[in-house]
């Protein structure tokens, strides 16, 4: 293994989040009744003509801008010819020689180091339908709802050198397309799919080895496993005197192995030619300028700003900028609460994220919206409640549509800072625990914690902890 270098390139298909299909006005919603969203254009009926969806073009261009790529002023759709029952026309409309997005790049972080991965191109194409092989007694059932859904196929350079780097790239891209709002990123539903080209070569060799393509790996975990498995297979094969053949392999997650799907040579004879039904796509400077104006602050820039403006650490800044809704929630909370940004960040990445994870919810569906969270954090800031009581209040707010103040008042959770009240409790506890008082005074500092605990218990956790510490220290010192 140590004598070999792994070379990986990824092709990622992202379904663009348009309402209608790339070349027809049929809906793209997931999970509809079979074939209820496949119109005459999607079905390839005679005489129909494709008309390109402007939103798909806008999304491709915004992606291109986000990876600092060249946006082609002139791009062309081509027919990729092959026969399969889920491809009604007998060809897929794709792009070949003149894709809409040219060379760009994406920076990934692996083991604390930043590495730049080249992106060769990204092109627009239509998705195929779905074949269902079970329950039809020797026949396959075809659902063409997905046929014609817009895809942006993003092709990387063979720049990755380990499965770990491949996963980091895939995650970063997944984050970016969701951040840009061009893909919902739902991998279970197939909105974000990955094919990996994997080869190995002896260390120091300049030319690439023969590659195998692993198809349709639909989770981050499986990408890593499938690549590692394929690398092992290729090395074993070569070391035992064999040769890697260029082919497509399918990853079987149950058996944790890849197996040959079809020989690539014949299947690859796609006989591309420009689609005569579609004119070239011309992207004007004006259209680009319009899109550029809508381009959101990108994750990298936002993360840097969060660190500089809010003083957040790397972890919090990374987590909060992983999605735009989360970043917006954070900034809105800071603005509404007027609290220290770190307090807001800790609550959002801590208690709130944990509760969302547990409930399987996205930030946009959070039962505690930002004004209510801000209300809670403001009460921590002005010392009405302690951080510990705040967790209790948060629980209550998660369950019921009430404000922090409602919970604090209804349950009498207001923190007691009145030094007189705290002192009289301390006096009582000291009188009842003279042994411990002696121990403390003879130098056993640890007993201090015992007294804090006793006071807090007596006051049902509502005492201001700073005030308790201060008063207790003074009294014990005698």
């Amino acid at each position: 293994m140590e004598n070999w270098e792994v070379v990986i390139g990824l092709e990622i298909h992202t379904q663009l989040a348009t309402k209608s299909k790339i070349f027809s006005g049929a809906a793209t919603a997931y999970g509809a009744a079979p074939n209820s969203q496949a119109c005459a254009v999607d079905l390839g009926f005679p005489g129909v003509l494709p008309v390109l969806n402007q939103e798909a073009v806008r999304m491709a261009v915004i992606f291109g801008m986000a990876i600092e790529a060249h946006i082609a002023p002139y791009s062309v759709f081509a027919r990729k010819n092959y026969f399969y029952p889920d491809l009604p026309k007998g060809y897929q409309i794709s792009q070949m020689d003149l894709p809409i997005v040219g060379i760009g790049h994406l920076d990934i972080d692996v083991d604390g180091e930043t590495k730049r991965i080249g992106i060769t191109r990204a092109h627009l194409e239509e998705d195929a339908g779905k074949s269902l092989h079970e329950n039809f007694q020797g026949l396959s059932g075809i659902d063409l709802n997905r046929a014609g859904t817009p895809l942006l196929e993003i092709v990387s350079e063979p720049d990755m050198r380990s499965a770990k780097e491949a996963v980091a790239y895939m995650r970063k891209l997944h984050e970016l397309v969701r951040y840009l709002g061009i893909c919902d990123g739902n991998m279970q539903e197939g909105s974000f799919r990955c094919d990996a080209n994997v080869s190995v070569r002896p260390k120091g060799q300049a030319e690439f080895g023969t590659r195998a393509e692993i198809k349709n790996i639909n989770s981050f975990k499986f990408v890593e496993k499938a690549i590692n498995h394929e690398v092992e297979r290729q090395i074993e094969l070569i070391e035992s005197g064999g040769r890697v053949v260029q082919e497509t392999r399918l990853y079987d997650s149950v058996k944790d192995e890849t197996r040959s799907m079809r020989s690539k040579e014949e299947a690859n004879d796609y006989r591309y030619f420009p689609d005569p039904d579609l004119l070239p796509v011309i992207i004007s400077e004006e259209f680009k300028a319009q899109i550029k104006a809508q381009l959101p602050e990108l994750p990298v820039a936002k993360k840097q700003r969060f660190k500089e403006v809010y003083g957040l650490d790397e972890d919090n800044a990374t987590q909060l900028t992983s999605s735009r809704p989360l970043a917006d929630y954070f900034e809105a909370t800071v603005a509404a609460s007027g609290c220290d940004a770190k307090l807001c960040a800790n609550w959002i990445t801590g208690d709130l994220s944990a509760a969302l994870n547990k409930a399987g919810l996205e930030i946009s569906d959070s039962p505690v919206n930002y004004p209510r969270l801000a209300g809670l954090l403001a009460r921590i800031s002005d010392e009405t409640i302690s951080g510990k009581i705040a967790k209790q209040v948060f629980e209550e707010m998660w369950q019921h549509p009430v404000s922090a103040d409602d919970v604090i008042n209804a349950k009498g959770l207001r923190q007691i800072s009145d030094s007189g009240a705290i002192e009289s409790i301390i006096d009582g506890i000291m009188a009842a625990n003279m042994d411990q008082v002696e121990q403390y005074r003879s130098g056993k500092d640890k007993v201090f914690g015992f007294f804090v605990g006793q006071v807090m218990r007596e006051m049902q956790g509502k005492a201001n902890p700073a005030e308790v510490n201060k008063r207790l220290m003074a009294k014990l010192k005698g």
Partner: protein
Amino acid sequence: MSLTASDVKKIAHLARLGIDELDIEAYTHDLSGMLNLMVQMSDLNTDGIEPMAHPMEQGQRLRTDEVTERDQHKQFQAIAPQVDSGLYLVPKVIE
């Protein structure tokens, strides 16, 4: 440039066309003739000429992203040989 009979068979297979053995010779001749025309054209001086992807010098008109089609699968499936629960049924194909 001339094609062989096996080239013609391969092209026909890729296009899933059944052709008669007896017609292969004629196809080989005709298709080779078309390719020869390409060869002839490639001899022309095209310096400074922008390649075109379409004979019409226009850009693609774009559509607004709106759902304009309604569910008509019953009508479409009326001419399908076999359907079940809204699915088109075809001979089993598995890779």
